[in-house]
């Protein structure tokens, strides 16, 4: 998708003015938070598993080249093919080539953020193929011609009334008299419609939550079962995955999977966790005839020797966004690219460039909730700070910020002047406030006073009053 991250402030303002969006965000995020808490509290080993999950991914990342080689060898041994793609264009070309070789017209898709990252749907459509999203949330946003607003709940922002509108517009055979007020009616409609699509499809594309080096298995986790129908019914199955998804063994996958559902939806385990190795075997009565893994780098290997390496531990559970007050205020679309929330604030600048995405790591209070809940213990706030440092080093900050900071720093290095300025400000602001105790307006402080008053200082500084009371301070 075309990024609009540089317009984050305007995107955010639009989102904040949308009352319907606000209602959806409040409801959805609070439910996710509550269920995660309950699931974590119920498992005494949860914190120990987080430590181990982090260690597994750190070990794997440190040996990623070797594990990827093993993974590839195992996929080939199972009769599959691995396609290495350095960038989004390479992955798009690889997928299109596979589809064309299969003579494909219709492509069903399981949920994949990598597919969003490489904008595969647009590419397939431009070449005459019909991609059909089969995850219910993805299907809804596809009909609405929107990107997903959340990595595990793509239609996080959509109300059931809006879903009904989209179905009525898209499903032309739908009887206008049929009520679609209830989620159950909407689900029944989508299920019937998509069942046909599963059977028509020539190619099924899924993502991968994990890749397993020892076995060459790709792993998807779903609740709907759409991923399984996507990969079992068509003759060709394409797995689209980024390189950092690999873990060494099924035992390591078990640890990560214990963390994933609990962190994401608060479930003990998702309904369907599927491990796939290669195409249909000789005696198999069903399953795809061909199995392809499209392995995407797209800037990830370049993070290996940077302070952002640890973001590659991410297992895409979405807990950071569910707990982020900024995401909770503006929703996923405001971020302007595939990965919203704290994860996006760290990953997006790496993938689409700091110039485009510089607002994202800045739009954080560093409240720390994301790091507190991240199952992989990724230090997200520290990484956002690293991006701010790079922004400063590259001179990407607005001039007014740069000059303001420089002026403040000049004073802060000179205690006498710093205190004099504080004394002056304390008096001045007190006088301006008169007896009201607050200032409703202050030149140059519009960012503060647009929505808040500024409480006035007491009038004299602590240091001033302290000096009057005592002398001879020192250790």
């Amino acid at each position: 998708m075309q990024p609009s991250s540089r317009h984050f402030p305007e995107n955010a303002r639009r989102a904040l003015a949308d009352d319907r969006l606000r209602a959806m965000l409040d409801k959805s995020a609070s439910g996710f938070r509550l269920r995660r808490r309950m699931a974590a509290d119920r498992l005494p080993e949860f914190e120990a598993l987080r430590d181990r999950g982090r260690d597994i991914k750190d070990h794997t990342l440190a040996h990623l080249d070797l594990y990827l080689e093993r993974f590839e060898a195992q996929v080939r041994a199972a009769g599959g093919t691995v396609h290495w793609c350095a960038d989004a264009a390479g992955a798009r070309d690889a997928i299109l080539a596979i589809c064309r070789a299969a003579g494909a017209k219709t492509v069903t898709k399981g949920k994949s953020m990598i597919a969003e990252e490489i904008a595969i749907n647009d590419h397939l459509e431009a070449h005459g193929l019909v991609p059909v999203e089969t995850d219910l949330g993805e299907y809804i946003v596809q009909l609405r011609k929107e990107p997903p607003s959340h990595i595990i709940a793509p239609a996080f922002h959509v109300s059931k009334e809006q879903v009904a509108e989209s179905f009525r517009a898209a499903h032309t055979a739908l009887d206008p008299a049929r009520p679609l007020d209830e989620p159950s009616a909407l689900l029944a409609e989508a299920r019937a419609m998509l069942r046909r699509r599963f059977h028509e499809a020539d190619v099924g594309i899924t993502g991968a939550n994990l890749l397993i080096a020892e076995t060459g298995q790709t792993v998807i986790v779903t609740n709907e079962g759409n991923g399984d129908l996507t990969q079992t019914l068509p003759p060709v199955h394409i797995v689209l995955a980024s390189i950092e998804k690999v873990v060494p063994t099924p035992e390591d996958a078990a640890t990560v999977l214990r963390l994933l559902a609990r962190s994401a939806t608060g479930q003990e385990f998702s309904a369907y966790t599927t491990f796939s190795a290669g195409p249909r075997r000789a005696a198999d009565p069903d399953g795809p005839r061909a199995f392809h893994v499209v392995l995407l780098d797209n800037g990830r290997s370049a993070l290996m020797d940077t302070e952002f390496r640890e973001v590659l531990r991410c297992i895409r559970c979405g807990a950071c966004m569910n707990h982020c007050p900024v995401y909770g205020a503006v929703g996923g679309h405001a971020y302007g690219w595939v990965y919203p929330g704290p994860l996006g604030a760290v990953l997006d600048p790496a993938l689409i460039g700091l110039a485009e995405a510089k607002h994202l790591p800045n739009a954080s209070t560093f409240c720390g909730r994301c790091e507190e809940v991240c199952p992989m213990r990724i230090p997200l706030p520290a990484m956002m700070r690293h991006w701010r440092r790079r922004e400063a080093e590259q001179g990407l900050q607005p001039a007014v910020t740069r000059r303001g900071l420089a002026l403040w720093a000049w004073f802060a290095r000179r205690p006498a002047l710093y205190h004099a300025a504080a004394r002056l400000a304390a008096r001045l602001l007190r006088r301006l406030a008169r007896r009201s105790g607050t200032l409703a307006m202050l030149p140059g402080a519009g960012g503060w006073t647009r929505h808040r008053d500024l409480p006035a200082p007491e009038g004299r500084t602590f240091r001033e009053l302290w000096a009057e009371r005592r002398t001879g301070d020192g250790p």
Partner: protein
Amino acid sequence: MPAVGLFVTCLVDLFRPTVGFAAVRLLEDAGCTVAVPDGQTCCGQPAHNAGERGTARDLARRTIALFEGFDAVVVPSGSCAGMIRVHYPELLADDPEWAPRARRLAARTHELVSYLTDVLGVAAVTARHDGAVTYHDSCSGLRELGIREQPRRLLASVAGLELREMADTGACCGFGGTFCVKYPDISDRMVADKAAAIAATGADTVLAGDLGCLLNIAGKLSRDGSPIAVRHVAEVLSGLAGGTPPIGART
């Protein structure tokens, strides 16, 4: 008798000297001798969070040199205390001379209420405060320093005080240093949610341990015309609340 260096913080110095005096009283009541070293300015957090590591390091070195002679450094702010305790050692990690000094100072630096309870073992205060209060957990204090039960323990010992917890006490108020002026609309949504949670408790006063959050919350409540009083927790614990109007109140 521990010799305590009080790191006042910029906001307390400029906006709310009462908090500084409240800290001094609480520390002295607990048997400390308190000094306020001249030459202290800012801990450097604004520079650190803006990615200006050079400036942040300079200010860190200044602060370390100024405070390393004390038995303890006490800060009436979880955010500034967190800067010294957590971020100084990482900022100066590559500096062979300053890294050990940063680590030593970090180990001896404490947020005020945490110092009173966790280090000095203070279990009760003698203050009185008649009314219902609610307590906002500031992000850095809560998540960087693990301060949650300590202020509640001391508040429970204040005569006449009833604590009414708000929903999601640890939700960020939307201050975030320069965040609140860089993204004022998002910050407003956050502080509006916080103000609503505060009002829903029916408490007459909201307390917190960080002046940044308090100015933000007081400014929002004032703009909304709310009568809820806003104070630093140290004001109530020290018994100094009676002598000074709440933050942003009419005088």
